[in-house]
């Protein structure tokens, strides 16, 4: 027994434990990313693979970045992506927060059942669920028909429509994204809300705060880390989402994931696709790093 613990205590072992995930990230994230960065600086050629670093000094080509930053197509795609992802994130937060809060307030046995229900959609294929939504939103579905009838009942005659155009719109993209990413918002929120001490709520109430004031002063500020974690878990993948906008989105205003995919496959412009991917990553990682920098500083002054 003593020997084993000695072995575990050796510094080398601790270094290895810490080192392994770093090695993993190095080999499977940083290295591929550097390859992508390199590719983005190459020149498109009709070869296989379809790029090269040939030609004149300085052997690299910044043309792709110039296009990303100047061509309105990419700018619009970025704006559409950030807009859709942002709206989806806010809606996930508005829907997810009460659900997560509710989870912390029910009995243990109910909590387990409800938590399972949150995760349950993952058990069926993601594609299947998107196709189900496509069916619901389609012009001839009962769902669309029901909404159309409701609309026609409520509005004046000359506003009446045959069906509500839901498919192939940003509305459809946001709806399906909210549906898909909601658990990623609920779970981190639940994790942070569950750790809060309910006695603090009582203390605030005891000091004269009504329940909504207790929420505003005590619960909400303490759940900020959960809100940020959930927000990032929803926003980042949603901004780069490919499948949902491809299936239900508006083809005339593509999201950025769609552009990357198109550049890689149909246009066979790998440097362009890589440049868009690099810019997307910088846009996503930049604010995250800023946030953790400021949080570290805030904690340092505590």
């Amino acid at each position, binding site marked *: 027994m003593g020997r084993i613990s000695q072995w575990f205590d050796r510094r080398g072992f601790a270094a290895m434990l810490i080192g392994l995930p770093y090695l993993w990230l190095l080999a499977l994230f940083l290295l591929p990313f550097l390859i992508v960065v390199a590719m983005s600086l190459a020149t498109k050629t009709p070869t296989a693979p379809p790029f090269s670093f040939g030609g004149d000094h300085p052997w690299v080509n910044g043309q792709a970045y110039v296009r990303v930053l100047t061509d309105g197509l990419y700018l619009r795609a970025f704006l559409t992506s950030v807009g859709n992802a942002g709206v989806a994130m806010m809606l996930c937060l508005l829907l997810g927060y009460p659900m997560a809060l509710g989870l912390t307030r029910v009995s243990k046995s109910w909590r387990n059942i409800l938590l399972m229900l949150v995760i349950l959609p993952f058990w069926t294929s993601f594609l299947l669920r998107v196709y189900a939504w496509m069916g619901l939103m389609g012009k001839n579905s009962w769902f669309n028909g029901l909404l159309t009838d409701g609309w026609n009942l409520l509005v004046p005659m000359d506003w009446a429509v045959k069906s509500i155009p839901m498919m192939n719109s940003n509305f459809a993209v946001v709806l399906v994204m909210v549906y898909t990413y909601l658990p990623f918002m609920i779970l981190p929120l639940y994790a942070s809300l569950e750790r809060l*001490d309910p*006695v*603090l709520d*009582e*203390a*605030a*109430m*005891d*000091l*004269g*705060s*009504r329940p909504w004031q207790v929420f505003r*002063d*005590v619960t909400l*500020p*303490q759940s900020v880390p959960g809100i940020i974690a959930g927000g990032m878990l929803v926003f980042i993948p949603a901004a780069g989402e490919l499948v949902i906008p491809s299936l239900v989105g508006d083809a005339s205003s593509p999201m950025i994931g769609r552009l990357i995919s198109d550049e890689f496959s149909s246009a066979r412009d790998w440097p362009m696709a890589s440049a868009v991917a690099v810019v997307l990553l910088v846009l996503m990682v930049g604010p995250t790093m800023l946030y953790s920098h400021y949080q570290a500083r805030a904690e340092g002054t*505590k």
Partner: protein
Amino acid sequence: MQDAAEPFLRIEGVSKTFGSFQAVRNVSLSVGKGEIFSLLGGSGCGKTTLLRMLAGFEEPSAGRIFLDGRDMAGVPAWERPVHMMFQSYAIFPHMSVEKNIAYGLKHEALTKAEKADRTREMLELVQLVPFAARKPHQISGGQRQRVALARALARQPKLLLLDEPLAALDKKLREQTQFELMSIQARTGVTFIVVTHDQEEAMTLSDRIAVMDKGEVKQIGSPTEIYEFPASRFVADFIGSINAFDAAVLGVEAGLLRLSVPALGTEVLARGQSGVAEGSKVTLAIRPEKLRLSMEKPADGNAVQGKVRDLAYFGKDSLYRIALPSGVLVQAHAVNARRGDEGARVADWDDEVWLAFDATSAIVLVE
């Protein structure tokens, strides 16, 4: 107008039931303005539930609570002029010491300057001015306790509820804090209701104590009354240590009861008590420090002989465990008045000793 005879806080026949469990049974008591009143009892005796009903976190299942003449039924926690110092202190971790103390003032109709003044005043009261900007995790446990106290006092409550105020502090700090609490209470004049399981804490802090057991109030009285004149065997046992024996009343003579106590193997005289008739079964109880230990037979009074089975030396006094001929063990405290080594003790292991006590020191319990 308030009736002159109306007490400041009146709890009237209050009960609380959780499902089939009755946490508080028909409790009635009154507390005067400016009093330090303790609810003392073991865990699960209902003291915390009673406190939570005063704070407004629970509604009584039956009975009523009047504070300063006002019926508290249906008044939510946030509208009661009652504040609580929680056992875990419940300090908001995301706010500085100052913000914590000022929190309750948010809801007061005060100007900004008045709020700042009041906060300052509270910081001074609990001597935390240099720590105002600190976050709760940057101060010690004793300081957190003072933050909790200042926060609860900042709104000038009519009633301050303290849930095990000293339980989380170490012994040295506890004694110091005890006196601090009392001096703060004296300065602010706020009525304190203290919940505690620690009898020493209750004895030193309180003007009056209610001893609780299984949801019922067993006795209410000053610390002296509770200690010297316990009303039942439970209270006598719970507060301090006591030697209790079954006894039968043989007769009543000149205000004294003559008792037959089989465990002592003799008849003893004890101060009479109303409602005790000849022939009734009672409990004779004697505090260990009321027993006089000697090597020679005392001239008169109640006395029994025994053998020292065990002794524990505490420095200022010693605790003796003495076996009587009947086999019963009796505890006796003796002050070590003389200075010296082993020989200075009143008695030693296996010594045959006499135990004597006055008739007035013996407690006769009917319950």
